[in-house]
């Protein structure tokens, strides 16, 4: 072995000429490594592949003309982007390659942004400057952020767009859930614009809970909230029976009676057994509250709590007081003060009290609590942060109870503890934590939510959007959300509107919900007499709607107060109510309007004018439109509906003035026939 080596040494480096020659050769060879590495690089391989993919296509010449060889780079200093992805993804802008199935040659789907302006990694993450498949897409030692899985891609839209976008339903849902499901009661989320995310739910105060329900129900509820109501947002804290006993003991002992929140009406409930159900239906309780029917389907809205088993929960005397005036118990409630009379209160409370589930409390037997148990219950209530969500007398709302979630989308993976078998990526960690928080450590306080898989994806999407980039964005790129206005109507009418919870359904001046029509310009739109009649006895305007305006037992004074306020304050500057008359249009013009209505514009597709022939279900019924709307409003509406009510689905037909006038004349002439006339006399 040694001999061989020596002779080889002699052959190569025996004399200076030989040594020079060999060293030069080695030097030359090592010089060739770099060009060779370049020549055999992955991107060159993919570019060759692209050229052979397009060779036999009919548009090959165009494609070849667009093709630029070599490493391509998008450099955006403002965003810190150096993206070389287009070196391999060569066909990104070639729409004609839509039939190509293999990556990296597929064209990019149509989006509102250009790659020259935003690069690739702003949306997709990954290492932009890398020129190998492995380094660009995966997490490496030098680069933590791998490519973002497609299902979370909308999180990148959320880095700049803080408001909801029509093209990002998943992100919108995630934001909605984060605010609505109680997350931000415990976790602080500072948004990139400096504001703090506000919770949109309103968990009830527990300071007077003993008036409302029993200790047994609190026990059963805390043990498994979804056993009482499958739609409950309250999460499961997985407490032991002893802890449940003590917490329920503390909450009941801590509760103080509230004047007026219990009541026993002397009036008898209606003798007709179906009267309760009818009153529930007529009052449109189902617009906000859901009840599970025999088939297991939820029927009703999700604004208020589910009522399937409400009789097992609430005390009858509390329910009667609540139905009489909910604002006594909770001044902030979204529930309107219906002004039910005593007989109605008795009927409705009887109907609701019958909605029971005997199994729920059958296994709950609690003995009178000891002072130690109550003290232990109080400690548990503080430990679990109950007061983060609920107002509890004597317990302060804890500050920063849970870790702050601002910038969670950029949390370094080295700071995370993963579960065995879990992929080591940030999205998987976040999703796993939402899905089963206690799996990460049994000692964690975060409760178990009942989110669906789609909801977990949506929440993860929103949390990933709260990353470093979103907080350090050049201000010119940030697209702010439109914030809900804090508009409040003034004076006596304003108080009345709060009492009736108008804003739980209607929107006015950018404040309120969107269940019912926007009333910002209602005063320009409707006639006074119609509004008075409607408030007294709301009729059906849109036959296909299941949510309708409930009837409140108003006094005449209240109706006048409301009507006067609406007619004077909610006026549009674009509509002069008195500029066009309600009567006296020439018969010829009315007839022309009728022809336009049924012919050129075919309004009968969506509206009912003649109940015998028309069937349209989409817009409001127009049989009485001449006694409902003002002529000036109709005219302006014909000219441009979206200018009066942004987002309305009635198309803008860009009518000529003559057409709009003729249609106005025809519509105003529809006063609702003889019935209306006799009623007026």
């Amino acid at each position, binding site marked *: 072995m040694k001999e061989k080596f020596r002779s080889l040494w002699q052959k190569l480096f025996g004399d200076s000429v030989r040594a020079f020659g060999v060293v030069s050769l080695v030097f030359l060879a090592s010089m060739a490594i770099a060009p060779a590495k370049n020549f055999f690089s992955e991107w060159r391989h993919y570019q060759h592949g692209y050229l052979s993919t397009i060779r036999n296509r009919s548009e090959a010449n165009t494609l070849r003309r667009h093709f630029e060889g070599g490493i391509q780079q998008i450099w955006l200093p403002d965003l810190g982007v150096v993206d070389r992805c287009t070196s391999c993804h060569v066909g990104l802008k070639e729409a004609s390659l839509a039939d190509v199935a293999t990556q990296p040659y597929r064209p990019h789907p149509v989006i509102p942004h250009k790659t020259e302006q935003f690069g690739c990694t702003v949306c997709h993450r990954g290492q932009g400057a890398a020129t190998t498949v492995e380094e660009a897409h995966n997490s490496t030692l030098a680069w933590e952020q791998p490519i973002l899985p*497609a*299902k979370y891609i909308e999180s990148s839209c959320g880095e700049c767009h803080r408001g909801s976008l029509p093209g990002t339903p998943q992100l919108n849902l995630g934001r909605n859930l984060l605010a609505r499901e109680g997350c931000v009661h415990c976790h602080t989320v500072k948004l990139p614009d400096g504001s703090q995310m506000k919770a949109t739910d309103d968990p009830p105060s527990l300071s007077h809970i003993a008036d409302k329900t029993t200790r047994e129900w609190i026990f059963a509820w805390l043990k498994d909230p979804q056993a009482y109501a499958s739609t409950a947002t309250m999460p499961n804290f997985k407490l032991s029976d002893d802890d449940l006993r003590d917490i329920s003991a503390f909450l009941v002992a801590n509760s103080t009676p509230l004047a007026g929140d219990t009541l026993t009406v002397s009036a008898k409930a209606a003798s007709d057994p179906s009267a309760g159900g009818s009153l529930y239906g007529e009052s449109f309780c189902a617009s906000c509250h859901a009840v599970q029917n025999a088939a297991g389907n939820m029927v009703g809205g999700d604004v208020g709590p589910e009522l399937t088993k409400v009789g097992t929960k609430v005390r009858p005397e509390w329910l009667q007081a609540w139905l009489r005036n909910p604002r006594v118990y909770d001044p902030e409630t979204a529930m309107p003060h219906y002004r039910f009379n005593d007989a109605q209160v008795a009927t409705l409370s009887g109907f609701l009290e019958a909605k029971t589930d005997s199994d729920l409390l059958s296994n709950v037997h609690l003995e009178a609590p000891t002072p130690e148990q109550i003290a232990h219950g109080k400690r548990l209530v503080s430990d679990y942060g109950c007061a983060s969500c609920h107002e509890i007398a004597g317990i302060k709302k804890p500050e920063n109870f849970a870790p702050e979630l601002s910038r969670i989308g950029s949390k370094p993976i080295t700071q995370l503890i993963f579960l065995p078998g879990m992929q080591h990526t940030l999205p998987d960690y976040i999703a796993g934590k939402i899905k089963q928080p206690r799996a990460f450590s049994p000692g964690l306080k975060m409760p178990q939510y009942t989110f669906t898989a789609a909801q977990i994806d949506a929440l993860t999407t929103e949390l990933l959007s709260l990353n470093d980039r979103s907080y350090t964005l050049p201000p010119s790129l940030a697209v702010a959300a439109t914030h809900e206005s804090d508009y409040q109507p003034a004076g006596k009418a304003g108080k009345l509107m709060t009492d009736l919870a108008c804003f739980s359904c209607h929107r006015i001046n950018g404040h309120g919900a969107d269940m019912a029509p926007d009333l910002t310009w209602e005063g320009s739109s409707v006639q006074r007499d119609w509004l008075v009649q409607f408030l007294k006895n709301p009729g059906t305007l849109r036959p296909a709607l299941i949510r309708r305006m409930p009837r409140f037992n108003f006094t005449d004074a209240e109706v006048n107060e409301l009507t006067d306020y609406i007619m004077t304050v909610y006026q549009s500057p674009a509509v002069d109510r008195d500029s066009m008359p309600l009567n006296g249009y020439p018969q010829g013009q009315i007839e022309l309007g009728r022809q336009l209505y049924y012919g050129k514009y075919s309004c009968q597709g969506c509206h009912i004018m003649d109940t015998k022939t028309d069937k349209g279900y989409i817009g409001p019924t127009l049989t009485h439109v001449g006694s409902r709307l003002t002529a000036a409003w109709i005219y302006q509406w014909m000219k441009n509906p979206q200018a009066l009510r942004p987002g309305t689905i009635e*198309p803008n037909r860009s009518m000529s003035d003559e057409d709009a006038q003729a249609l106005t004349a025809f519509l105003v002439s529809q006063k609702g026939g003889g019935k209306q006339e006799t009623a007026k006399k």
Partner: protein
Amino acid sequence: MKRYSALFIGMLLLANSCSRTQESAPLPKPTAFGAAIVESSGGKQFAQTGALLPQPVVVQVNDAQGSAVAGALVEFAGAPGVTFDPASGLSDSSGQVTTNVSLGGTAGRYQLTAATLDKSHKRVEVKIEEIALGYQETLGRHLNDQYCERCHNPESTVERVSNYDNLEVKPHPFTEGDTLNKMSDADLTAIISHGGPALNKSALMPAWGNTLSKSDIQALISYIRAVSDPPSRNAGPVYAKN
């Protein structure tokens, strides 16, 4: 020489133990075998790229007489990027296996396969098609839900009563590929912007050109093309397992 080889083997072992290999869970053992597999529900759904399909996919294993077989093993497969939860399972007492599916990251049509073994251990399978919507199609779908669906979709839901039956001239549901595929993008743009009469069709279809922007209309057309059945001419490839 020995020392080198020992070192080499050592390094090999080290490299092997460092690389993370994913072990798939062992498949459950079938207790029965069917003769055929059919789709029960969950085909032809749309979802955004990467997102879960709104409804699970359900397949049923039947025997030669067409009655359900319980305990047969069904395995699901799709193009790379498609995930199934669970990816395999034994059929329940009604012969069914249910799985939640999320489609891949590329918009387009996906072909899923559900396969089972028959008594002679031959593979029988059923192919199920689903559609993944990209950004533009999702935008189009949003516009469809807001403006179009109440007339163009004959199905009613609790929240949305269909106006289809009320119309004298019936609108075309957007899945009706036989008719809509014959119309060019320019035709569809004209009819959406200027209403039915632009192509000598019913005036019950109003003109949306002043309400929807040009890019809105493009988005709507991309949605109509994406959900068309049979698929439109430029529907692109079908993503299936390799």
